[in-house]
């Protein structure tokens, strides 16, 4: 009997709270899809770094479980309140609390299971979609294979029902202490509008705004630290809750004062609805705004990285293969053999980068390149030389030069037109991002090489591998005739291949270089460390070994400079375009996937609560709109009232989230462009994210509107 009743109730709840079910199915689908991908053997085989992605998704899952638990907790309480009279009747009929609690538990678990089953079904398709995406990242053909990953399913199952467990145990406690009259009263409680200390509480509104503005100012003005970040977060959260509490009271006071707006047609009705909704939901609205804000920020960040992925590899690595050697006379013979064995070479060049013991350009950039954020400047904005020489990681010790002939041959490899320099001319090849910081002072200067005074003849911003290979950020192109006046700095080898190389090429080249330079792979390094500890080496010896090798092992580079790219920087002695592209894409995907996962779940949960709040109240609204109808409102006018009411209700947290996140997103986006050299701007990324956000928003809004109108017409 209990089961049958639970089943029937669950069926009714599914009908009444369809949006909730759909969202829970969506959450289950996302959980299943992501978990399956993370634990997929194919992905693990394809990419060694799959564990990073696993960790990121795992981290995201923790947040998601917390928020989904909150949603379930909210919904369980909400449904309990809505159905309190029914539970009171069960008690009246002689059922004991324990039994009712069990009934409710079973009902919720049935709903959860239905959502999970639908979710897994939908998630299967989502998983295939994600896998196709992955395979595309790695330029491989994906064969759709039917089969559900048992590990993925298991993990999703555990995560999904973990969300339920805690909440439902809590609700049992709730039942235990309830009497029949409590249940009967609970329903009335919803309708009660408590007259509070609104005159004082409305002060929270400006306080909230002040806190939010304060948080923004602090994060913009002060130098970044974890303490400040937490301070800002705390201020933001407190600000949001104050804002909503204050807004509810402000509205109540306005109504009490009989403000002019309350005399305008239906607005009295709409304002009262809004005020009482805000009063009962101020904390929920605050949380919803926060969730939406996180979703928007996440979207923005995901867009940044997605855009970066587009440009990064092309910027850094237009060449199929590029190898660096610190020995200026190195001829790269073995490397060429290794490449030749792997894939035929279509064109190649062994060349050198030079210096002139001049430092004008690097000193200029140390001051003007915004990526350093004034790190090397003194109080007057001039170069702090000692600070720069001590901490310089981006640039070589001297300005780097390249011969015109070499430059044109490299351009030829890239399919670019050659340049022609005059007898007394020079050009600058620079990263597009850095070109923005060159002003007349440096663009118009005369470069002295030996006896020659070279005049500027142009700036080139083609993609040119300038993370330490063809200079760091820049290289100065000079006529071949001044070669003897320059000192060879280091040597490079660039190649264009006939076809895509094998996945193993990069490894083979690295192994060769490691063998030659005495560098170690990570495994070799750890083994050596272990053997040192086992053989009882002194702490000093171990530390010396670590200091000597660690950087080489983990960074894998002996480049002396890497340019000023930050956040994601592609720098290595040996660059194989295909491998680096895959690695970058995977690194970027490891960031984007969890962020999108979190963002989507947060967005859907916030919207579900908004929708459920409105739709489940429509019984009450049916009566209210009926009264309005009797007062002479036409159907069209009633639709208008519904439209306005829902719009205000939906837009309030959305606008709030937009206001809150836009400042931060645009700020962060612009910084991102400064540091990484990705194309676009903060506003552009934010706009993209906003479009997706409002797309999903619109879907939920329309579903609510249609459902609402249908309900009040019943």
């Amino acid at each position: 009997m209990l089961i049958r009743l639970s089943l029937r109730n669950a069926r009714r709840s599914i009908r009444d709270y369809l949006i909730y079910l759909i969202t829970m199915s969506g959450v289950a689908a996302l959980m299943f899809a992501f978990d399956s991908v993370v634990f997929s053997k194919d992905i693990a085989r394809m990419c060694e770094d799959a564990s990073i992605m696993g960790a990121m998704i795992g981290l995201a899952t923790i947040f998601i479980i917390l928020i989904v638990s909150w949603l379930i907790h909210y919904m369980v309480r909400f449904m309990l309140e809505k159905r309190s009279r029914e539970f009171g009747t069960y008690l009246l009929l002689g059922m004991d609390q324990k039994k009712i609690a069990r009934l409710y538990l079973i009902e919720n678990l049935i709903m959860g299971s239905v959502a999970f089953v639908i979710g897994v079904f939908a998630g299967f398709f989502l998983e295939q979609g994600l896998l196709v995406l992955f395979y595309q990242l790695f330029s491989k053909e994906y064969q759709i294979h039917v089969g559900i990953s048992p590990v993925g399913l298991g993990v999703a199952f555990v995560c999904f029902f973990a969300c339920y467990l805690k909440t439902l145990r809590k609700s049992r406690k709730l039942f235990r202490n309830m009497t029949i009259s409590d249940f009967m009263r609970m329903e009335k409680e919803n309708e009660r509008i408590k007259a509070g200390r609104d005159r004082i509480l409305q002060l929270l509104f400006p306080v909230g705004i002040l806190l939010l503005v304060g948080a923004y100012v602090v994060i913009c003005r002060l130098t970044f630290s974890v303490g400040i970040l937490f301070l800002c977060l705390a201020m933001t959260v407190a600000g949001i809750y104050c804002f909503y509490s204050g807004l509810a009271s402000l509205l109540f006071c306005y109504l009490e004062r009989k403000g002019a707006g309350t005399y305008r047609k239906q607005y009295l009705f709409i304002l009262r609805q809004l005020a009482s909704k805000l009063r009962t939901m101020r904390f929920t609205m605050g949380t919803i705004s926060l969730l939406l804000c996180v979703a928007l920020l996440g979207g923005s960040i995901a867009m940044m990285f997605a855009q970066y992925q587009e440009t990064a590899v092309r910027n850094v690595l237009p060449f199929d293969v590029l190898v660096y050697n610190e020995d200026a006379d190195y001829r790269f013979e073995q490397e060429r053999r290794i490449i030749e064995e792997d894939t035929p070479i279509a064109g190649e060049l062994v060349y050198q980068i030079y210096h002139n013991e001049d430092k004008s350009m690097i000193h200029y950039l140390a001051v003007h390149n915004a990526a350093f954020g004034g790190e090397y400047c003194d109080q007057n904005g001039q170069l702090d030389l000692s600070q720069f020489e001590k901490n310089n990681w981006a640039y070589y010790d001297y300005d780097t030069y390249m011969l015109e002939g070499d430059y044109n041959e490299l351009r030829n490899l890239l399919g670019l037109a050659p340049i022609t320099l005059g007898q007394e001319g020079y050009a600058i090849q620079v990263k597009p991002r850095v070109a923005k910081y060159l002003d007349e002072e440096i663009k118009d200067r005369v470069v002295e090489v030996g006896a020659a005074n070279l005049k500027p003849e142009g700036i080139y911003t083609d993609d040119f591998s300038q993370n330490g290979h063809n200079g760091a950020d820049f290289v100065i192109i000079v006529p071949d005739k001044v070669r003897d006046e320059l000192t060879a700095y280091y040597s490079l080898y660039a190649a264009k291949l006939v076809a895509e190389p094998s996945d193993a090429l990069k490894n083979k080249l690295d192994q060769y270089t490691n063998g030659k330079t005495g560098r170690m792979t990570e495994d070799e390094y750890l083994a050596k460390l272990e053997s040192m500890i086992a053989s009882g080496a002194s702490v000093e010896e171990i530390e010396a070994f670590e200091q000597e090798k660690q950087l080489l092992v983990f960074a894998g580079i002996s480049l002396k400079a890497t340019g000023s790219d930050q956040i994601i920087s592609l720098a290595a002695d040996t660059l194989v375009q295909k491998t680096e592209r895959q690695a970058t894409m995977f690194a970027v995907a490891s960031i984007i996937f969890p962020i999108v996962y979190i963002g989507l779940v947060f967005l859907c949960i916030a919207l579900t609560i908004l929708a459920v709040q409105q739709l489940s109240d429509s019984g009450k609204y049916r009566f209210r709109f009926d009264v309005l109808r009797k007062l002479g409102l036409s159907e069209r006018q009633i639709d208008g009232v519904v439209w306005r009411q829902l719009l205000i209700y939906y837009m309030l947290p959305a606008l709030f989230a937009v206001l809150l996140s836009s400042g931060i997103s645009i700020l962060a986006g612009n910084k991102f462009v400064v540091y990484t050299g990705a194309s676009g701007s903060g506003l552009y990324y934010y706009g993209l994210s906003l479009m997706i956000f409002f797309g999903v928003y619109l879907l939920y809004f329309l579903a609510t509107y249609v459902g609402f109108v249908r309900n009040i017409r019943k």
Partner: protein
Amino acid sequence: MNEFIKVCDVEKYYGEGNNITKAVNRVSFSIDHGEFVGIMGASGSGKSTLLNMLSTIDHVTAGHIYYDGLDITALRSEQVAQFRKYNLGFVFQDFNLLDTLTIEENIRLAMTLHGKSKQEIDPVVHGMMSKLGIAEIADKFPYQVSGGQKQRCACARALVNQPKLVLADEPTGALDSRSSMMLLDTFTLMNREFHATILMVTHDAFSASYCGRILFLKDGQIFHELSRGEKTRREFLNQILDVLALTGGDSGYAD
């Protein structure tokens, strides 16, 4: 004649095929301006259906209803809403007050929906509240006041726009006898002072005795009509009870 409402051969059927219920069957009558008319009948006699059609909430199956010569059965839905807005006021058994609005706001809303200004609204609302004795509960919410007060608020709301007709559906149904008497006195006041035309549906003989004229409905048809004339309320009540006794209706007050 000062005829206001004319009901001509109105019918209302529910169901289809062999399963047709005639809720109202060829009813005709008329009401003059300033009249206080009651419609009486047992449950299921069709009195509420008739009221719903008169109040444009429901459509007629056949027949016509004229208000000052205007046939409301021929109006389009937008026009019907307009008609309702400017001509009718409602008082219902369950008050139909909006629970999110205060007593005063419930009354005020009826006027703001008409697009009136604050200057017009405030004196009318306050005057109406003090006349009906609810001025001191103006800022209370419906759940904070008694049933009688709620119903007087509903009356005030029905009257503020000076409608041509006030329709009351079992207005005393949810009230105790003292509150009922107060409300019926209010109705009489509305009728005399504000010259409101009132049409009240009730199954309660005591309430009906406040009316000037009563139509008795049975099985969807008018079977009797009583006018109070110069009779006292007590005499009129007895007369009503006699009619009810004949039909086996409400006879509780006869004993």
